[in-house]
């Protein structure tokens, strides 16, 4: 057992050393001799981003409530720290006890976005753990992963021993139970493969990539994905907590020592989404909607606020105002924080007069800007993507916002959506100019400042388990053309145009729908020093392009190719509960501009009712 010593001169010569020392309020310390299992949870991005993530905090506190487990944390060191650590041969360590990662029993990664993949490899390597799962020996940690990216883990399949698909709370508890059973039988005789096979066969949603064989056709598409043995499932179905009110939820949340990106109490109102926007992976893989009781939520919110000292409570869910207890919860949160400095933040709201009133009372400080996500510029295209927002809804929302004294609005759009043509891009510009015009129509005494309308355009990225999983992404030069086209149309000086890295969207599209052959590309990129790909100024697209072609792989095969419905997709052996037939049907409807109702109006039989709960049975 060893403790890593980090000399003062290193900590004092890197940016924000507070990220590397631990000692946070509500962080957990245990005697390592008192526990059977030492687990390290890793977030493959900076401390500030990782400490903003609710899911990892839940698992951290959940595991530490057990007497037999000590769970610690590690984050990706920023490049300055990374190079200092490498120079001095300092292994990547956990913040609690400064133990190198390779001394843990279980090392888990949370994968929130594909662009963190190269960081995962760096963290394994710096932690002294063989990067490839096949190279790990008896006494190396079991390396696991979970999070949204687990739904298509194929590009990272070679690096993980087991992947947790779906919601991890129960899985991780059972996995830890099983692991304890195995080590109690004797650590020296610990049978890695036996343990992984039993986990995969007995715990829902656990996928061990190396137990499956992938065969390819001559045209590079996949012929088949089959389990080598009958003991593990042919199709791995995600795990989920069907009654979220019964799920573990910590109130004594860890509080970072330096400001995190989201530094507040996050309150998860429900899991899932009823809307079915056709580009949105989260909306499908988290089905069905399962709500939590507003009384319970209020209790959790007030207790966590006391236990953390945070002055902000953020409501967290995919479409906050769809929560059926929204009015009760929002009003009571506001009443209960009245007279204190605590403010409530409400993302993803649909603005009507009630929510405008709530917003007014919720934020204690200066009126914050509002954000809306129409995603597409015309009704026609919004029907294609099933984004249920009309021009009229937007107009009304703007009127409410402006007459309430706000002057800044941010609008999110996507470029490159299926069936999009230049008229749809014109539509974005028309919408934005209409909003500017509507600002000047409100009574003069209400508008003290000039309007500031931001149009933010992201690139469409086709994602697995969505009705658009077969679609092609626009070629890079077409994406550039559309960006420029839109920029030239947005003439008003009150409109600001922002867009996101097109190259990184292409690479994200490759990884999102990638197969196992990409593992070697990610490995080589890591060896060449690629890291922090999610950071635009760090991302090196040219390196990935070159490595792809050196490995005989083609970016456009993954990003720009339209798949046929009968093609075997790299994630076909995984199930999120939504059937492929439903997704095909949604795709066909999209191309004929037909919308689908949300779950509460009409159930469209997506398949998620098989989980036996939630909105499907309301």
């Amino acid at each position, binding site marked *: 057992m060893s403790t890593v010593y980090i*000399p*003062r*001169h290193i*900590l*004092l*010569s890197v940016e*924000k*050393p*507070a990220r*590397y*020392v*631990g*000692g*946070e*309020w509500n962080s957990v310390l245990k005697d390592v001799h008192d526990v059977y299992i030492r687990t390290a949870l890793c977030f493959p991005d900076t401390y500030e981003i990782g400490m903003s993530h609710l899911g990892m905090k839940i698992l951290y506190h959940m595991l530490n409530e057990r007497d037999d487990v000590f769970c610690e944390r590690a984050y990706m060191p920023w490049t300055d720290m990374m190079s200092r650590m490498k120079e001095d041969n300092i292994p990547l360590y956990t913040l609690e006890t400064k133990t190198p990662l390779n001394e843990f029993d279980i090392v888990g990664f949370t994968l929130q976005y594909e662009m963190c993949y190269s960081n995962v490899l760096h963290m394994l390597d710096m932690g002294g753990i063989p990067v490839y799962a096949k190279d790990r020996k008896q006494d190396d940690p079991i390396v696991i992963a979970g999070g949204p990216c687990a739904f298509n883990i194929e590009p990272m399949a070679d690096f993980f021993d087991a992947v947790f698909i779906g919601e991890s709370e129960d899985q991780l508890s059972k996995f830890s139970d099983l692991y304890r059973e195995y080590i109690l039988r004797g650590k020296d005789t610990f049978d890695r493969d036996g343990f992984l096979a039993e986990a995969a066969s007995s715990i829902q949603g656990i996928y061990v990539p190396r137990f499956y064989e992938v065969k390819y056709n001559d045209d590079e598409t996949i012929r088949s994905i089959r389990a080598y043995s009958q003991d593990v499932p042919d199709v791995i179905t995600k795990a989920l907590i069907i009654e979220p009110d019964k799920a573990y939820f910590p109130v004594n949340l860890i*509080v970072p*020592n*330096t*400001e995190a990106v989201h530094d507040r109490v996050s309150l998860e109102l429900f899991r899932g989404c009823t809307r079915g926007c056709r580009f949105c992976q989260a909306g499908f893989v988290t089905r069905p909607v399962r709500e939590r*009781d*507003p*009384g319970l939520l*209020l209790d959790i919110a007030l207790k966590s*606020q*006391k*236990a*953390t*000292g*945070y*002055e902000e409570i953020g409501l967290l869910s995919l479409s906050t105002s769809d929560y*059926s*207890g*929204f*009015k*009760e919860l929002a009003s*009571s949160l506001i*009443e*209960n924080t*009245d*007279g*204190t*400095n605590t403010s409530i933040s409400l993302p993803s709201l649909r603005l009507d007069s009630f929510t405008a009133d709530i917003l007014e009372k919720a934020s*204690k*400080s*200066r009126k914050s800007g509002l954000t809306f996500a129409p995603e597409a510029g015309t009704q026609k295209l919004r029907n294609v993507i099933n984004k249920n927002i009309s021009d009229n809804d937007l107009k009304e929302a703007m009127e409410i916002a402006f007459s309430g004294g706000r002057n800044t609005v941010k609008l999110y759009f996507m470029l490159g959506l299926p069936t999009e043509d230049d008229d749809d891009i014109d539509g974005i510009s028309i919408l934005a100019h209409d909003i500017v015009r509507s600002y000047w129509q409100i009574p003069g005494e209400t508008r003290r400042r000039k309007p500031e309308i931001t149009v933010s355009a992201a690139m469409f990225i086709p994602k697995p388990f969505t009705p658009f999983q077969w679609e092609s992404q626009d070629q890079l030069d077409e994406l550039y053309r559309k960006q420029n086209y839109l920029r030239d149309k947005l003439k008003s000086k009150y409109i600001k145009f922002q867009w996101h890295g097109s190259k990184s969207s292409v690479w994200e599209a490759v990884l999102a729908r990638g197969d196992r052959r990409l593992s070697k590309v990610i490995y080589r990129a890591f060896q060449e020093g690629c890291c922090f790909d999610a950071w635009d100024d760090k991302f090196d697209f040219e390196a990935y392009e070159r490595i792809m072609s050196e490995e005989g792989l083609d970016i456009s095969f993954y990003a720009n190719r339209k798949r046929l419905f009968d093609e075997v997709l790299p994630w076909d052996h995984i199930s999120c509960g939504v059937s492929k037939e439903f997704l095909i049907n949604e795709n066909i409807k999209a191309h004929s501009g037909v919308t689908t109702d949300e779950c509460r109006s009409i159930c469209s039989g997506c398949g998620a009712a098989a989980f036996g709960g939630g909105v499907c049975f*309301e």
Partner: protein
Amino acid sequence: MSKYNITLPVSPNLRKNEPDITKVIRFNFSRRGALIYIAHLDMLRLFERALIRSGLKFVSSQGFNPRPLMVFALPVGIGVEVDNDLVEITFYGGPDTEQAADKLNASMPPDIRITNAHYEDRASGSIMAMVNSAEYTFMHKDLSRSVRTAMSGEVLNVTKGSKGKGGKVKDVDIKPLIHKLDFPDDNTIKAVFSAGSKNNLRPDLFLKALTTDSGFSLKNALDTVIIRNRIFLEGDHQVAEK
């Protein structure tokens, strides 16, 4: 319509029920361990959150972004251990000082400890304006020799300012800001520096001065343990003589 029909508890409006009397408590505190690596802004945030967690009824500023009325005597830099710094916080009513200290301690990470608390009833003025000097301990095996060499010169210059765009670089003599130097053993020096809003010598700047003239390496400077032993306020004692 919502499927929920519940009545939720409502707490009384805290601000309306506050008694009008406000009192200032001055706390002495130490900081060690991991928390010596957090920046001053993070210290402020940490104390604010600990205050909220403690349940003590503190007074906040008015305006758009209300903050607790809390004033640190002297900001503390990254990497500096603290034996006995001072912070003043304004409370509603008159909480028992010992209880207030206990509650704050129970709400703080263990690396920060409140060591003393008492009422401060001066009529006006910020504690920041009262600071005049601070005592530091430095520890490094090659330190005393370098300091003796450095202090033997007429002046002790250190380059201030950044070399970046538009930045002005100038040499400043910090010798007049050093009021006392003791050498308890070969590895340790104790020093009293000017501190506060008028003249302030930061301990890391002192170490930096050694690296320019006296052969003390930058690595040594960064590795030197720095402890701020205490802060002297006006009237605390005579420090003017060298």
